[in-house]
Protein backbone atom coordinates (compact mmCIF):
# COMPACT_ATOMS: atom_id res chain seq x y z
CA UNK A 1 0.00 0.00 0.00
CA UNK A 2 2.81 2.35 0.97
CA UNK A 3 4.75 1.30 -2.11
CA UNK A 4 1.76 2.05 -4.28
CA UNK A 5 1.40 5.46 -2.67
CA UNK A 6 5.02 6.26 -3.25
CA UNK A 7 4.77 5.06 -6.80
CA UNK A 8 1.83 7.35 -7.45
CA UNK A 9 3.65 10.30 -6.00
CA UNK A 10 6.65 9.62 -8.09
CA UNK A 11 4.54 9.18 -11.19
CA UNK A 12 2.95 12.51 -10.47
CA UNK A 13 6.31 14.10 -10.06
CA UNK A 14 7.63 12.40 -13.12
CA UNK A 15 4.65 13.50 -15.07
CA UNK A 16 5.05 17.11 -14.10
CA UNK A 17 8.74 17.04 -14.72
CA UNK A 18 8.42 15.43 -18.09
CA UNK A 19 5.71 17.89 -18.96
CA UNK A 20 8.08 20.69 -18.11
CA UNK A 21 10.78 19.08 -20.17
CA UNK A 22 8.47 18.51 -23.11
CA UNK A 23 7.48 22.14 -23.09
CA UNK A 24 10.95 22.88 -24.19
CA UNK A 25 10.50 20.89 -27.35
CA UNK A 26 8.74 22.53 -30.14
CA UNK A 27 9.06 19.71 -32.54
CA UNK A 28 8.22 16.13 -31.91
CA UNK A 29 11.38 15.08 -33.61
CA UNK A 30 13.43 16.57 -30.87
CA UNK A 31 11.88 14.25 -28.33
CA UNK A 32 13.69 11.34 -29.88
CA UNK A 33 16.97 13.06 -29.38
CA UNK A 34 16.36 13.38 -25.71
CA UNK A 35 19.23 11.87 -23.91
CA UNK A 36 18.44 8.94 -21.59
CA UNK A 37 21.13 10.11 -19.25
CA UNK A 38 19.00 13.04 -18.35
CA UNK A 39 16.66 10.58 -16.66
CA UNK A 40 19.47 9.01 -14.72
CA UNK A 41 18.78 11.00 -11.64
CA UNK A 42 15.10 9.99 -11.86
CA UNK A 43 15.99 6.36 -12.33
CA UNK A 44 17.85 6.33 -9.07
CA UNK A 45 15.11 8.14 -7.38
CA UNK A 46 12.44 5.80 -8.75
CA UNK A 47 14.30 2.65 -7.67
CA UNK A 48 14.85 3.93 -4.21
CA UNK A 49 11.41 5.30 -3.78
CA UNK A 50 9.69 2.02 -4.67
CA UNK A 51 11.39 0.25 -1.80
CA UNK A 52 11.01 2.82 0.89
CA UNK A 53 8.25 4.38 2.97
CA UNK A 54 6.34 7.52 1.95
CA UNK A 55 8.51 10.50 1.55
CA UNK A 56 8.02 14.13 1.29
CA UNK A 57 8.57 15.53 -2.17
CA UNK A 58 9.84 19.02 -2.89
CA UNK A 59 9.76 20.31 -6.40
CA UNK A 60 12.10 23.23 -7.04
CA UNK A 61 12.01 25.19 -10.24
CA UNK A 62 15.37 26.73 -10.67
CA UNK A 63 15.37 27.56 -14.33
CA UNK A 64 12.92 27.74 -17.04
CA UNK A 65 14.77 24.99 -18.69
CA UNK A 66 14.81 22.40 -16.04
CA UNK A 67 12.95 21.39 -12.95
CA UNK A 68 14.82 19.62 -10.27
CA UNK A 69 13.20 17.16 -7.93
CA UNK A 70 14.60 16.85 -4.46
CA UNK A 71 13.41 13.89 -2.40
CA UNK A 72 13.92 13.94 1.34
CA UNK A 73 14.66 10.32 2.08
CA UNK A 74 14.67 8.51 5.48
CA UNK A 75 18.14 7.08 5.16
CA UNK A 76 21.35 8.93 4.99
CA UNK A 77 22.11 6.98 1.88
CA UNK A 78 19.07 8.44 0.38
CA UNK A 79 20.24 11.85 1.32
CA UNK A 80 23.54 10.96 -0.13
CA UNK A 81 21.84 10.01 -3.32
CA UNK A 82 19.99 13.22 -3.17
CA UNK A 83 23.20 15.07 -2.85
CA UNK A 84 24.47 13.20 -5.81
CA UNK A 85 21.32 13.91 -7.63
CA UNK A 86 21.60 17.47 -6.69
CA UNK A 87 25.14 17.56 -7.99
CA UNK A 88 24.15 15.64 -11.07
CA UNK A 89 21.23 17.87 -11.64
CA UNK A 90 22.01 21.30 -12.79
CA UNK A 91 20.88 23.19 -9.75
CA UNK A 92 22.60 26.44 -9.71
CA UNK A 93 21.57 27.53 -6.30
CA UNK A 94 19.84 25.65 -3.49
CA UNK A 95 17.10 27.59 -1.79
CA UNK A 96 17.78 25.95 1.54
CA UNK A 97 21.04 25.74 3.32
CA UNK A 98 22.01 22.36 4.73
CA UNK A 99 22.62 23.93 8.06
CA UNK A 100 19.02 24.79 8.27
CA UNK A 101 18.12 21.10 8.32
CA UNK A 102 20.46 20.09 11.08
CA UNK A 103 17.85 19.67 13.68
CA UNK A 104 15.38 18.10 11.36
CA UNK A 105 16.99 14.72 10.91
CA UNK A 106 15.26 13.37 13.94
CA UNK A 107 11.88 14.48 12.86
CA UNK A 108 11.33 11.80 10.22
CA UNK A 109 12.43 9.29 12.83
CA UNK A 110 9.93 10.50 15.38
CA UNK A 111 7.21 10.65 12.81
CA UNK A 112 8.04 7.12 11.74
CA UNK A 113 7.97 5.93 15.35
CA UNK A 114 4.59 7.52 15.66
CA UNK A 115 3.51 5.70 12.57
CA UNK A 116 4.67 2.45 14.14
CA UNK A 117 2.27 2.91 17.14
CA UNK A 118 -0.74 0.65 16.84
CA UNK A 119 -3.94 2.41 15.81
CA UNK A 120 -6.72 1.65 18.21
CA UNK A 121 -10.13 1.44 16.60
CA UNK A 122 -12.79 2.60 18.98
CA UNK A 123 -16.18 0.87 18.77
CA UNK A 124 -18.80 3.22 17.47
CA UNK A 125 -21.82 3.29 19.85
CA UNK A 126 -24.73 1.25 18.56
CA UNK A 127 -27.12 4.13 18.08
CA UNK A 128 -24.64 5.99 15.97
CA UNK A 129 -24.00 3.03 13.76
CA UNK A 130 -26.95 3.73 11.51
CA UNK A 131 -27.53 0.01 11.26
CA UNK A 132 -31.05 -1.38 11.55
CA UNK A 133 -29.74 -4.79 12.52
CA UNK A 134 -28.91 -3.64 16.04
CA UNK A 135 -32.63 -2.88 16.62
CA UNK A 136 -33.69 -6.47 16.02
CA UNK A 137 -35.66 -6.70 19.28
CA UNK A 138 -37.69 -3.61 18.45
CA UNK A 139 -38.42 -4.98 15.00
CA UNK A 140 -39.50 -8.22 16.62
CA UNK A 141 -41.86 -6.36 18.96
CA UNK A 142 -43.43 -4.37 16.15
CA UNK A 143 -43.83 -7.54 14.10
CA UNK A 144 -45.58 -9.18 17.06
CA UNK A 145 -47.95 -6.24 17.37
CA UNK A 146 -48.75 -6.34 13.68
CA UNK A 147 -49.42 -10.08 13.96
CA UNK A 148 -51.76 -9.42 16.90
CA UNK A 149 -53.65 -6.76 14.94
CA UNK A 150 -53.97 -9.03 11.91
CA UNK A 151 -55.27 -11.86 14.11
CA UNK A 152 -57.74 -9.46 15.75
CA UNK A 153 -59.23 -8.47 12.40
CA UNK A 154 -59.37 -12.03 11.09
CA UNK A 155 -60.82 -13.46 14.33
CA UNK A 156 -63.43 -10.75 14.65
CA UNK A 157 -64.58 -11.27 11.08
CA UNK A 158 -64.75 -15.05 11.50
CA UNK A 159 -66.90 -14.77 14.64
CA UNK A 160 -69.16 -12.32 12.90
CA UNK A 161 -69.61 -14.66 9.94
CA UNK A 162 -70.36 -17.60 12.21
CA UNK A 163 -72.97 -15.61 14.11
CA UNK A 164 -74.62 -14.45 10.92
CA UNK A 165 -74.62 -18.00 9.54
CA UNK A 166 -76.30 -19.27 12.73
CA UNK A 167 -78.95 -16.58 12.56
CA UNK A 168 -79.66 -17.16 8.88
CA UNK A 169 -80.13 -20.88 9.55
CA UNK A 170 -82.45 -20.40 12.54
CA UNK A 171 -84.31 -17.27 11.51
CA UNK A 172 -87.24 -19.05 9.89
CA UNK A 173 -87.85 -21.38 12.84
CA UNK A 174 -87.66 -18.52 15.33
CA UNK A 175 -89.95 -16.25 13.35
CA UNK A 176 -92.53 -19.00 13.12
CA UNK A 177 -92.51 -19.45 16.90
CA UNK A 178 -92.02 -15.95 18.28
CA UNK A 179 -93.59 -12.59 17.49
CA UNK A 180 -90.54 -10.59 18.52
CA UNK A 181 -87.22 -11.87 17.15
CA UNK A 182 -84.33 -9.60 18.07
CA UNK A 183 -84.65 -6.75 20.57
CA UNK A 184 -81.99 -4.61 22.24
CA UNK A 185 -84.37 -2.93 24.68
CA UNK A 186 -83.62 0.58 23.46
CA UNK A 187 -86.37 1.07 20.89
CA UNK A 188 -89.58 2.76 21.99
CA UNK A 189 -91.77 0.19 20.30
CA UNK A 190 -91.48 -3.57 20.57
CA UNK A 191 -90.52 -4.30 16.99
CA UNK A 192 -88.25 -7.06 15.80
CA UNK A 193 -84.80 -5.77 14.94
CA UNK A 194 -84.16 -8.96 13.03
CA UNK A 195 -80.52 -9.02 14.02
CA UNK A 196 -78.21 -10.18 16.80
CA UNK A 197 -76.97 -7.88 19.57
CA UNK A 198 -73.20 -7.84 19.68
CA UNK A 199 -72.04 -7.77 23.27
CA UNK A 200 -68.42 -8.51 22.52
CA UNK A 201 -66.21 -9.54 19.66
CA UNK A 202 -67.08 -13.14 20.63
CA UNK A 203 -70.54 -12.96 22.32
CA UNK A 204 -73.79 -12.35 20.47
CA UNK A 205 -77.31 -12.18 22.02
CA UNK A 206 -80.76 -12.68 20.61
CA UNK A 207 -84.00 -12.03 22.54
CA UNK A 208 -87.21 -13.68 21.34
CA UNK A 209 -90.60 -13.13 22.88
CA UNK A 210 -94.32 -13.42 22.20
CA UNK A 211 -95.17 -17.09 22.44
CA UNK A 212 -97.48 -19.35 24.40
CA UNK A 213 -96.05 -20.84 27.61
CA UNK A 214 -92.98 -18.67 27.92
CA UNK A 215 -92.20 -15.06 28.71
CA UNK A 216 -89.22 -15.05 26.42
CA UNK A 217 -86.10 -16.81 25.22
CA UNK A 218 -82.59 -15.41 25.39
CA UNK A 219 -80.08 -17.05 23.05
CA UNK A 220 -76.43 -16.35 23.64
CA UNK A 221 -73.79 -17.35 21.08
CA UNK A 222 -70.57 -17.71 23.05
CA UNK A 223 -67.84 -18.10 20.49
CA UNK A 224 -64.16 -18.59 21.18
CA UNK A 225 -61.99 -15.51 21.52
CA UNK A 226 -60.61 -15.75 18.04
CA UNK A 227 -59.75 -12.04 18.10
CA UNK A 228 -57.23 -12.51 20.95
CA UNK A 229 -53.96 -14.07 19.81
CA UNK A 230 -53.09 -15.27 23.31
CA UNK A 231 -56.35 -17.18 23.47
CA UNK A 232 -55.72 -18.66 20.04
CA UNK A 233 -52.32 -19.93 21.20
CA UNK A 234 -53.82 -21.31 24.44
CA UNK A 235 -56.48 -23.16 22.45
CA UNK A 236 -53.75 -24.93 20.49
CA UNK A 237 -52.84 -26.68 23.74
CA UNK A 238 -56.43 -27.37 24.83
CA UNK A 239 -59.17 -27.46 22.18
CA UNK A 240 -62.47 -25.87 23.23
CA UNK A 241 -65.77 -25.61 21.38
CA UNK A 242 -67.97 -22.66 20.60
CA UNK A 243 -71.18 -22.78 22.63
CA UNK A 244 -74.80 -21.77 22.19
CA UNK A 245 -76.64 -21.06 25.47
CA UNK A 246 -80.41 -20.80 25.48
CA UNK A 247 -82.43 -19.58 28.48
CA UNK A 248 -86.21 -19.87 28.29
CA UNK A 249 -88.16 -18.03 30.99
CA UNK A 250 -91.46 -19.82 31.55
CA UNK A 251 -94.73 -18.41 32.83
CA UNK A 252 -95.50 -19.38 36.42
CA UNK A 253 -98.70 -21.16 35.46
CA UNK A 254 -97.09 -23.06 32.58
CA UNK A 255 -94.54 -25.08 34.52
CA UNK A 256 -94.87 -27.37 37.51
CA UNK A 257 -92.48 -27.43 40.44
CA UNK A 258 -89.48 -29.66 39.76
CA UNK A 259 -85.73 -29.53 39.21
CA UNK A 260 -84.16 -31.73 36.58
CA UNK A 261 -80.92 -31.83 34.55
CA UNK A 262 -79.34 -34.05 31.91
CA UNK A 263 -75.97 -33.70 30.22
CA UNK A 264 -72.37 -34.81 30.17
CA UNK A 265 -71.14 -36.10 33.53
CA UNK A 266 -68.44 -33.44 33.77
CA UNK A 267 -70.89 -30.63 33.06
CA UNK A 268 -73.40 -31.94 35.61
CA UNK A 269 -70.79 -32.23 38.35
CA UNK A 270 -69.76 -28.64 37.71
CA UNK A 271 -73.37 -27.41 37.61
CA UNK A 272 -74.20 -29.23 40.82
CA UNK A 273 -71.42 -27.36 42.58
CA UNK A 274 -72.13 -23.98 41.07
CA UNK A 275 -75.92 -23.74 40.77
CA UNK A 276 -77.99 -22.89 43.83
CA UNK A 277 -81.05 -24.99 42.91
CA UNK A 278 -79.19 -28.10 41.75
CA UNK A 279 -77.09 -28.18 44.91
CA UNK A 280 -80.15 -27.84 47.16
CA UNK A 281 -82.70 -30.06 45.39
CA UNK A 282 -80.55 -32.64 43.58
CA UNK A 283 -78.03 -33.63 46.20
CA UNK A 284 -77.36 -37.14 44.80
CA UNK A 285 -74.58 -37.80 42.32
CA UNK A 286 -75.42 -37.77 38.60
CA UNK A 287 -76.91 -41.11 37.55
CA UNK A 288 -76.47 -42.97 34.32
CA UNK A 289 -79.22 -42.64 31.76
CA UNK A 290 -78.73 -46.11 30.28
CA UNK A 291 -82.06 -47.20 31.81
CA UNK A 292 -83.83 -44.80 29.47
CA UNK A 293 -81.71 -45.64 26.46
CA UNK A 294 -79.35 -42.71 26.72
CA UNK A 295 -75.70 -43.08 25.70
CA UNK A 296 -73.07 -43.54 28.41
CA UNK A 297 -71.71 -40.06 27.87
CA UNK A 298 -74.90 -38.53 29.32
CA UNK A 299 -75.96 -38.55 32.98
CA UNK A 300 -79.10 -37.38 34.85
CA UNK A 301 -79.65 -35.22 37.95
CA UNK A 302 -83.21 -35.22 39.22
CA UNK A 303 -85.21 -34.12 42.25
CA UNK A 304 -87.34 -37.27 42.10
CA UNK A 305 -87.75 -40.33 39.94
CA UNK A 306 -91.16 -39.30 38.71
CA UNK A 307 -89.72 -36.23 37.03
CA UNK A 308 -87.13 -38.31 35.18
CA UNK A 309 -89.78 -40.75 34.02
CA UNK A 310 -91.97 -37.93 32.86
CA UNK A 311 -89.21 -36.07 31.02
CA UNK A 312 -87.60 -39.04 29.29
CA UNK A 313 -90.28 -39.75 26.71
CA UNK A 314 -89.54 -41.24 23.30
CA UNK A 315 -89.00 -38.01 21.46
CA UNK A 316 -86.75 -36.52 24.10
CA UNK A 317 -84.68 -39.68 24.22
CA UNK A 318 -84.42 -39.58 20.44
CA UNK A 319 -83.13 -36.01 20.54
CA UNK A 320 -80.65 -36.77 23.32
CA UNK A 321 -79.34 -39.91 21.66
CA UNK A 322 -78.91 -38.51 18.17
CA UNK A 323 -77.31 -35.23 19.20
CA UNK A 324 -75.44 -36.38 22.31
CA UNK A 325 -72.10 -35.08 20.99
CA UNK A 326 -73.52 -31.56 20.71
CA UNK A 327 -75.35 -31.46 24.07
CA UNK A 328 -73.43 -30.08 27.03
CA UNK A 329 -76.36 -29.74 29.47
CA UNK A 330 -80.14 -29.40 29.69
CA UNK A 331 -81.50 -27.94 32.93
CA UNK A 332 -85.20 -27.50 33.86
CA UNK A 333 -85.98 -25.78 37.15
CA UNK A 334 -88.73 -23.84 38.87
CA UNK A 335 -86.24 -22.66 41.52
CA UNK A 336 -83.59 -21.23 39.22
CA UNK A 337 -81.75 -18.25 40.68
CA UNK A 338 -78.41 -18.47 38.96
CA UNK A 339 -75.09 -19.50 40.43
CA UNK A 340 -74.44 -19.47 44.19
CA UNK A 341 -73.65 -15.98 45.39
CA UNK A 342 -70.66 -15.86 47.74
CA UNK A 343 -71.08 -12.88 50.05
CA UNK A 344 -68.41 -11.68 52.40
CA UNK A 345 -70.79 -11.18 55.30
CA UNK A 346 -71.89 -14.80 55.17
CA UNK A 347 -75.27 -16.01 54.05
CA UNK A 348 -77.57 -13.52 52.30
CA UNK A 349 -80.40 -12.41 54.56
CA UNK A 350 -83.20 -13.47 52.26
CA UNK A 351 -83.73 -16.17 49.69
CA UNK A 352 -82.76 -15.14 46.16
CA UNK A 353 -85.56 -14.60 43.64
CA UNK A 354 -86.38 -17.66 41.57
CA UNK A 355 -87.80 -18.02 38.10
CA UNK A 356 -89.15 -21.00 36.21
CA UNK A 357 -86.48 -21.55 33.61
CA UNK A 358 -85.35 -24.00 30.95
CA UNK A 359 -81.62 -23.81 30.18
CA UNK A 360 -79.82 -25.45 27.28
CA UNK A 361 -76.09 -25.46 26.52
CA UNK A 362 -75.03 -26.85 23.15
CA UNK A 363 -71.53 -27.31 21.71
CA UNK A 364 -70.96 -26.25 18.14
CA UNK A 365 -69.34 -29.10 16.17
CA UNK A 366 -65.76 -28.64 15.10
CA UNK A 367 -64.00 -28.18 18.47
CA UNK A 368 -62.94 -24.68 17.56
CA UNK A 369 -62.37 -25.26 13.86
CA UNK A 370 -65.88 -24.18 13.01
CA UNK A 371 -67.19 -23.17 9.63
CA UNK A 372 -70.43 -21.33 8.85
CA UNK A 373 -71.93 -24.47 7.37
CA UNK A 374 -71.58 -26.25 10.74
CA UNK A 375 -74.35 -24.02 12.07
CA UNK A 376 -76.91 -26.02 10.14
CA UNK A 377 -76.19 -28.97 12.42
CA UNK A 378 -77.63 -27.01 15.35
CA UNK A 379 -81.07 -26.56 13.81
CA UNK A 380 -82.48 -29.88 15.13
CA UNK A 381 -81.39 -28.79 18.60
CA UNK A 382 -83.54 -25.68 18.34
CA UNK A 383 -86.42 -27.99 17.48
CA UNK A 384 -85.64 -29.83 20.71
CA UNK A 385 -85.86 -26.55 22.61
CA UNK A 386 -89.27 -25.75 21.15
CA UNK A 387 -90.44 -29.25 21.93
CA UNK A 388 -89.19 -28.94 25.52
CA UNK A 389 -91.13 -25.71 26.02
CA UNK A 390 -94.36 -27.39 25.01
CA UNK A 391 -93.49 -30.47 27.05
CA UNK A 392 -92.82 -28.47 30.20
CA UNK A 393 -96.26 -26.93 29.87
CA UNK A 394 -97.95 -30.30 29.49
CA UNK A 395 -96.03 -32.21 32.15
CA UNK A 396 -97.68 -32.17 35.58
CA UNK A 397 -96.69 -34.00 38.72
CA UNK A 398 -99.18 -36.32 40.34
CA UNK A 399 -100.40 -35.72 43.87
CA UNK A 400 -97.57 -37.57 45.56
CA UNK A 401 -94.97 -35.87 43.46
CA UNK A 402 -96.46 -32.49 44.21
CA UNK A 403 -96.47 -33.14 47.94
CA UNK A 404 -92.87 -34.28 47.81
CA UNK A 405 -91.87 -31.22 45.84
CA UNK A 406 -93.62 -28.89 48.29
CA UNK A 407 -91.96 -30.63 51.21
CA UNK A 408 -88.56 -30.20 49.59
CA UNK A 409 -89.10 -26.52 49.07
CA UNK A 410 -90.29 -26.02 52.63
CA UNK A 411 -87.24 -27.88 53.92
CA UNK A 412 -84.86 -25.74 51.91
CA UNK A 413 -86.52 -22.58 53.14
CA UNK A 414 -86.38 -23.72 56.75
CA UNK A 415 -82.69 -24.57 56.45
CA UNK A 416 -82.04 -21.22 55.01
CA UNK A 417 -83.92 -19.44 57.78
CA UNK A 418 -82.02 -21.40 60.46
CA UNK A 419 -78.70 -20.48 58.94
CA UNK A 420 -79.61 -16.87 58.74
CA UNK A 421 -81.34 -16.74 62.14
CA UNK A 422 -78.39 -15.23 63.93
CA UNK A 423 -77.79 -12.67 61.20
CA UNK A 424 -81.46 -11.75 61.14
CA UNK A 425 -81.53 -11.32 64.89
CA UNK A 426 -78.55 -9.03 64.80
CA UNK A 427 -80.10 -7.06 61.99
CA UNK A 428 -83.37 -6.71 63.93
CA UNK A 429 -81.49 -5.61 67.06
CA UNK A 430 -79.57 -2.98 65.18
CA UNK A 431 -82.81 -1.72 63.63
CA UNK A 432 -84.42 -1.41 67.10
CA UNK A 433 -81.46 0.48 68.48
CA UNK A 434 -81.53 2.80 65.54
CA UNK A 435 -85.19 3.55 66.18
CA UNK A 436 -84.55 4.29 69.86
CA UNK A 437 -81.70 6.61 69.05
CA UNK A 438 -83.79 8.48 66.51
CA UNK A 439 -86.58 8.89 69.04
CA UNK A 440 -84.23 10.17 71.74
CA UNK A 441 -82.79 12.64 69.35
CA UNK A 442 -86.25 13.85 68.49
CA UNK A 443 -87.05 14.33 72.17
CA UNK A 444 -83.80 16.18 72.79
CA UNK A 445 -84.36 18.45 69.83
CA UNK A 446 -87.85 19.36 71.04
CA UNK A 447 -87.80 22.92 72.31
CA UNK A 448 -91.02 22.96 74.22
CA UNK A 449 -90.34 21.43 77.69
CA UNK A 450 -93.97 20.38 78.05
CA UNK A 451 -93.91 18.44 74.84
CA UNK A 452 -90.57 16.97 75.77
CA UNK A 453 -91.96 15.63 79.03
CA UNK A 454 -94.96 14.12 77.26
CA UNK A 455 -92.81 12.41 74.65
CA UNK A 456 -90.56 10.99 77.35
CA UNK A 457 -93.52 9.60 79.21
CA UNK A 458 -94.91 8.03 76.06
CA UNK A 459 -91.55 6.37 75.33
CA UNK A 460 -91.37 5.02 78.90
CA UNK A 461 -94.87 3.59 78.63
CA UNK A 462 -94.00 1.80 75.39
CA UNK A 463 -90.90 0.30 76.99
CA UNK A 464 -92.92 -0.96 79.94
CA UNK A 465 -95.53 -2.54 77.69
CA UNK A 466 -92.87 -4.39 75.77
CA UNK A 467 -91.32 -5.70 78.96
CA UNK A 468 -94.70 -6.92 80.18
CA UNK A 469 -95.35 -8.71 76.89
CA UNK A 470 -92.02 -10.47 77.11
CA UNK A 471 -92.68 -11.55 80.66
CA UNK A 472 -96.06 -12.93 79.65
CA UNK A 473 -94.48 -14.95 76.84
CA UNK A 474 -91.82 -16.36 79.15
CA UNK A 475 -94.56 -17.42 81.59
CA UNK A 476 -96.56 -19.11 78.84
CA UNK A 477 -93.48 -21.01 77.64
CA UNK A 478 -92.78 -22.14 81.18
CA UNK A 479 -96.36 -23.31 81.62
CA UNK A 480 -96.24 -25.22 78.33
CA UNK A 481 -92.97 -26.82 79.31
CA UNK A 482 -94.50 -27.97 82.52
Amino acid at each position, binding site marked *: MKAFHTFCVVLLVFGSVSEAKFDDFEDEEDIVEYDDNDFAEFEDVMEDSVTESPQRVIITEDDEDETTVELEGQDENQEGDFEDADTQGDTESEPYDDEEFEGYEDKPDTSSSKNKDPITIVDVP*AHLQNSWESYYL*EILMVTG*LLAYIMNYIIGKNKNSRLAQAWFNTHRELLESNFTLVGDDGTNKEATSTGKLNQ*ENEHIYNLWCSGRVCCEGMLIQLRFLKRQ*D*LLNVLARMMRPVSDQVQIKVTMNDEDMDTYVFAVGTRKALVRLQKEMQDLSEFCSDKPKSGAKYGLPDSLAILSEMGEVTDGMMDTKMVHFLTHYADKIESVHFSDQFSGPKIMQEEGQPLKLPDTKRTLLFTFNVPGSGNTYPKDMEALLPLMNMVIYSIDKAKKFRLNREGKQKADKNRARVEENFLKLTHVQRQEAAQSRREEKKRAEKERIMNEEDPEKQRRLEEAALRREQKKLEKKQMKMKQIKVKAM
Partner: protein
Amino acid sequence: MSTNNMSDPRRPNKVLRYKPPPSECNPALDDPTPDYMNLLGMIFSMCGLMLKWCAWVAVYCSFISFANSRSSEDTKQMMSSFMLSISAVVMSYLQNPQPMTPPW
Protein backbone atom coordinates in the same frame (compact mmCIF):
# COMPACT_ATOMS: atom_id res chain seq x y z
CA MET B 1 -109.23 -18.88 11.79
CA SER B 2 -109.43 -20.48 15.19
CA THR B 3 -107.43 -23.50 14.03
CA ASN B 4 -104.81 -21.15 12.71
CA ASN B 5 -104.56 -19.49 16.10
CA MET B 6 -104.37 -22.85 17.78
CA SER B 7 -101.47 -24.08 15.65
CA ASP B 8 -99.65 -20.79 15.61
CA PRO B 9 -97.79 -20.54 18.91
CA ARG B 10 -97.09 -16.82 18.51
CA ARG B 11 -98.85 -14.39 20.85
CA PRO B 12 -98.33 -10.72 19.96
CA ASN B 13 -100.07 -9.67 23.16
CA LYS B 14 -97.50 -11.48 25.31
CA VAL B 15 -94.41 -9.70 24.04
CA LEU B 16 -91.89 -8.74 26.70
CA ARG B 17 -89.03 -6.31 26.07
CA TYR B 18 -85.42 -7.33 26.47
CA LYS B 19 -83.79 -6.31 29.75
CA PRO B 20 -80.00 -6.56 29.79
CA PRO B 21 -78.97 -8.60 32.84
CA PRO B 22 -77.23 -6.43 35.43
CA SER B 23 -73.55 -7.33 35.70
CA GLU B 24 -73.65 -7.06 39.49
CA CYS B 25 -75.71 -10.21 39.68
CA ASN B 26 -73.12 -12.35 37.91
CA PRO B 27 -69.69 -11.06 38.78
CA ALA B 28 -68.21 -14.53 38.39
CA LEU B 29 -69.50 -14.86 34.84
CA ASP B 30 -68.08 -11.53 33.78
CA ASP B 31 -64.70 -11.90 32.20
CA PRO B 32 -62.16 -9.95 34.32
CA THR B 33 -59.44 -10.06 31.61
CA PRO B 34 -59.88 -6.53 30.21
CA ASP B 35 -59.77 -4.98 33.68
CA TYR B 36 -56.66 -6.91 34.72
CA MET B 37 -54.90 -6.12 31.46
CA ASN B 38 -55.75 -2.46 31.80
CA LEU B 39 -54.25 -2.36 35.26
CA LEU B 40 -51.17 -4.32 34.22
CA GLY B 41 -50.72 -2.01 31.26
CA MET B 42 -50.66 1.03 33.50
CA ILE B 43 -48.19 -0.55 35.92
CA PHE B 44 -45.86 -1.60 33.12
CA SER B 45 -46.12 1.88 31.60
CA MET B 46 -44.80 3.34 34.84
CA CYS B 47 -41.96 0.81 34.94
CA GLY B 48 -41.32 1.44 31.24
CA LEU B 49 -39.61 4.72 32.03
CA MET B 50 -36.83 2.71 33.64
CA LEU B 51 -36.87 -0.47 31.54
CA LYS B 52 -37.59 -0.50 27.83
CA TRP B 53 -39.07 -3.99 27.68
CA CYS B 54 -41.66 -2.96 30.32
CA ALA B 55 -42.90 -0.24 27.99
CA TRP B 56 -43.30 -2.76 25.18
CA VAL B 57 -45.15 -5.18 27.47
CA ALA B 58 -47.45 -2.30 28.42
CA VAL B 59 -48.33 -1.78 24.77
CA TYR B 60 -49.14 -5.48 24.45
CA CYS B 61 -51.30 -5.36 27.60
CA SER B 62 -53.34 -2.47 26.28
CA PHE B 63 -53.87 -4.30 22.98
CA ILE B 64 -55.01 -7.46 24.79
CA SER B 65 -57.34 -5.41 26.99
CA PHE B 66 -58.87 -3.80 23.93
CA ALA B 67 -59.36 -7.16 22.19
CA ASN B 68 -61.17 -8.63 25.21
CA SER B 69 -63.25 -5.57 26.10
CA ARG B 70 -67.02 -5.53 26.18
CA SER B 71 -68.96 -3.23 23.90
CA SER B 72 -70.41 -1.46 26.93
CA GLU B 73 -66.94 -0.69 28.20
CA ASP B 74 -65.83 2.92 28.33
CA THR B 75 -63.67 3.67 25.28
CA LYS B 76 -62.01 6.59 27.05
CA GLN B 77 -60.47 4.19 29.55
CA MET B 78 -59.14 2.02 26.74
CA MET B 79 -57.74 4.98 24.83
CA SER B 80 -56.05 6.47 27.87
CA SER B 81 -54.37 3.17 28.71
CA PHE B 82 -53.25 2.78 25.12
CA MET B 83 -51.86 6.33 24.87
CA LEU B 84 -50.07 5.90 28.18
CA SER B 85 -48.27 2.80 26.97
CA ILE B 86 -47.31 4.44 23.66
CA SER B 87 -45.96 7.48 25.46
CA ALA B 88 -43.94 5.22 27.78
CA VAL B 89 -42.28 3.61 24.75
CA VAL B 90 -41.60 6.97 23.06
CA MET B 91 -40.19 8.56 26.20
CA SER B 92 -37.92 5.64 26.99
CA TYR B 93 -36.42 5.86 23.48
CA LEU B 94 -36.04 9.62 23.61
CA GLN B 95 -34.23 9.26 26.89
CA ASN B 96 -32.02 6.41 25.70
CA PRO B 97 -31.98 5.76 21.95
CA GLN B 98 -29.87 2.65 22.23
CA PRO B 99 -31.45 -0.58 21.08
CA MET B 100 -33.16 -2.70 23.68
CA THR B 101 -31.16 -5.43 25.36
CA PRO B 102 -32.98 -8.65 26.21
CA PRO B 103 -33.92 -8.83 29.90
CA TRP B 104 -32.33 -12.30 30.27
